[in-house]
């Protein structure tokens, strides 16, 4: 059983690290490559929408990865590389979009839902006490019980 769990854990861990980068795309310097990957993971693939550019197999995205790596190799900071992409593709390209009026709902929805859920749960649990005092038996019921004895 433990072996099964271990296998599942390993599979999930590997699935999380899915990468589309091919060996010839990678930077020679492992430190720079790690930085480029970290930047790429923050950039959303404009072609496939639901993946980062590090995970996407699209030909177009490959060129975006190449650009990120070129800029990292040229000594650009993380912020400069992200800015480069943001100025061309807007908030869409950032997997972690900035907090501004058009994204307030996006960022605050979990907190709002939790708050409403909490209020709801609070009132629901308070209204009905779990252990209500049972009503005493009526005279007729008492008589019936006596009759059974």
């Amino acid at each position: 059983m433990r072996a099964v769990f271990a296998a599942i854990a390993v599979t999930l861990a590997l699935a999380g690290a899915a990468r589309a980068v091919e060996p010839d795309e990678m930077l020679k310097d492992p430190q720079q490559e790690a930085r480029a990957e970290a930047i790429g993971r923050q950039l959303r693939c404009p072609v496939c929408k639901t993946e980062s550019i590090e995970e996407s197999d699209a030909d177009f995205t490959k060129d975006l990865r190449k650009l990120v790596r070129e800029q990292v190799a040229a000594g650009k900071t993380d912020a400069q590389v992200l800015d480069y992409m943001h100025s061309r593709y807007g908030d869409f390209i950032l997997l972690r979009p900035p907090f501004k009026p058009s994204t307030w709902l996006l960022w605050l929805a979990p907190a709002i839902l939790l708050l409403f859920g909490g209020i709801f749960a609070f009132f629901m649990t308070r209204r009905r006490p779990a252990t209500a005092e049972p009503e005493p038996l009526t005279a007729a019921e008492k008589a019936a019980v006596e009759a059974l004895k």
Partner: protein
Amino acid sequence: MRRLLFILPVLVFVGIVVYFATPLLRGIDPSVIPSPLIDKPVPAFALPPLPGYPKGLSSADLKGQVQIVNIFASWCVPCRAEAPALMALKKMNIPIQGIDQKDKPADALEYLKELGDPYVSIGADLDRKVSIDWGAYGAPETFIVDANGRIRFKQAAPITQDDIDNTIVPLINRLRTEK
């Protein structure tokens, strides 16, 4: 008060339906990424010509008159569908500049021979860098650039006759009267 509480889920549901139905009914395509480049000057670029053509395309060519910039490629299937619409625009004397995205030049020449060449000039964007500067995420993509060299409109989908009649021509006419 009690009754209000019972109606609440219904109200929330109605709210959600309205929120999702509005863009659906208005025909907003969620796969289209809004471009931050609208109303901004065209990116600075200079692309070489395709073999056999006298000149390529650079940002300097995009000033002085209202023009269309069209990103295309021979490998792009919807570009073929769009080709007749571009030829129709050419017939209307609307200048179209082309950016040939990540293409083999020989394939591009073949494509233009087969479907016609609606472009004033074509720049060969061999490594796709200039397309990315334009915020493109595929092909075809069509931009309208005003006389001051600012991007005023973008469509990230093939142009249809309907787009020409209802969007492109009215906008170009309006931009031509702008000073």
